[in-house]
């Protein structure tokens, strides 16, 4: 249930970022996503989809991620819609 392979983690991060549950990567920081942040994002996704909030890649969650859907993000403001403040 915990994604362990790098490829699985990458797919999970990609999906969560694309639909607004994770902020887009900041190229200046090259920051890795922490497992805790991933779990939190997954819980938000599960709440949105009406699934039990396990924070795990259970079968229901994987099923929801594979469903055909609209391209737009679910959480507006996180997927590229946030304006960066100039220093």
């Amino acid at each position, binding site marked *: 249930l915990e994604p362990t392979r790098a490829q699985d983690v990458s797919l999970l991060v990609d999906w969560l970022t694309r*639909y607004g549950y994770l902020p887009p990567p900041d190229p200046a920081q090259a920051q890795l996503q922490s497992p805790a942040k991933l779990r939190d994002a997954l819980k938000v996704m599960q*709440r*949105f*989809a*009406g*699934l039990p909030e396990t924070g795990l890649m259970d*079968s*229901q*969650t994987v*099923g*929801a991620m594979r*469903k*055909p*859907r*609209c*391209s*737009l*993000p*679910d959480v*507006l403001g996180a997927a*590229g819609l946030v304006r960066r403040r100039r220093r």
Partner: protein
Amino acid sequence: YALSGSVWRKRSLTWGVRSFPQGSQLSHDKVRTLLNYALAVWGSESGLSFHEVDTQRQEPDILIDFVRAYHQDSYPFDGLGGTLAHAFFPGEHPISGDTHFDDEETWTYGVKDGEGTDLFAVAVHEFGHALGLGHSSAPSSIMRPFYQGPVGDPAKYRLSPDDLEGLQQLYGRVHQTPHRPTRRPLAPPPQPPTQLPDRNRPSVPAPDRCEGNFDAIANIRGETFFFKGPWFWRLQPSGQLVSPRPAGLHRFWEGLPVQVQMVQAAYARPGDGRILLFSGPQFWVFRDRQLDGPPRPLTELGLPPGEVVDAVFSWPSNGKTYLIRGQRYWRFDEAARRADPGYPRDLSLWEGAPPAPDDVTVSNTGDTYFFKGAHYWRFPKGSVKVEPDFPQPMGPQWLDCPASTSDPHVPKPPQATPRSRACDCKCEINR
């Protein structure tokens, strides 16, 4: 509902189709008709009016394209499945309101779910974005991000309360009859797409799934099927209904005799994956959706002649098949192809189970569920003792129905078999 933060300042919007789907069986006129209906769904509730224009002469507010892969915006399409469509929120930018559909989907209307993607359902969703709504998590909302199958007749479709509130938050309520177009349309007024009469479509009206009282419930290849009369609903492993509208029994289960108007029990046989549907003293075996052979008598599964079943399920804990009638049950050994001796036994051995359940099924996680009326009982994986706090109403958990415990129409759960309690008795090791 969620608002995008932008809204059209005008009440009259133009729309037009610049490119049509290439591989779809839908004609251009049918595509335009479906899109017109999808816009009208929003217009009739908001007072907004939509006028079709020729895209070669005029740039409409809502420009519609069927395109593939990368198409000059930030949302490239990904072929069949995956992302289906998107639309841009209202605004002053040329792309605002524009709506793109993935041309590599099989766009359909009026066919069985699973044989394509219903253009009308997706269009209603995308036009919600084009008018300023974001994605909603409300179960009944068309603005849920995931495709949920066809939504029925476009002429009769109505927005859910969640969508309606979001729309009226943006554009206010309608206090008069919806605005009618005053200019001549480019084509004759669209008619609802025709559907050929279907002899497999049940003639009786579809029942309300939220009332419960199903004839049969079964986990078939990870999906839960709820049978009622000549209809059934499907719940995907994700917990979402394939469609809130039921499918016709005979449209799906090919070869099931038309005189079989209800399925009293169903289960998927673990050994060979065949699906068994029970009605009266017989059962029918299906290989996928196709009937596989003549009807079989229940006596083949060890029941006395003339007996019928309320519920059938295969228990993963021992691989045996359980057949329940009233307060008794039989057990069938699939591997040995014979009934186990010493049966029937009393259903009270399943501690807390209701008598004569509508059906019993095992979930993808291995828990056993008894259903009766509008309630369900959960037995943890491998256990024959019901969990505390059961029964519970099945509608909210299983069928996307509102919780209505105070509703006097909802029947009270039937009394379960007695639970074990402290007693002054001895248990011999050999008993």
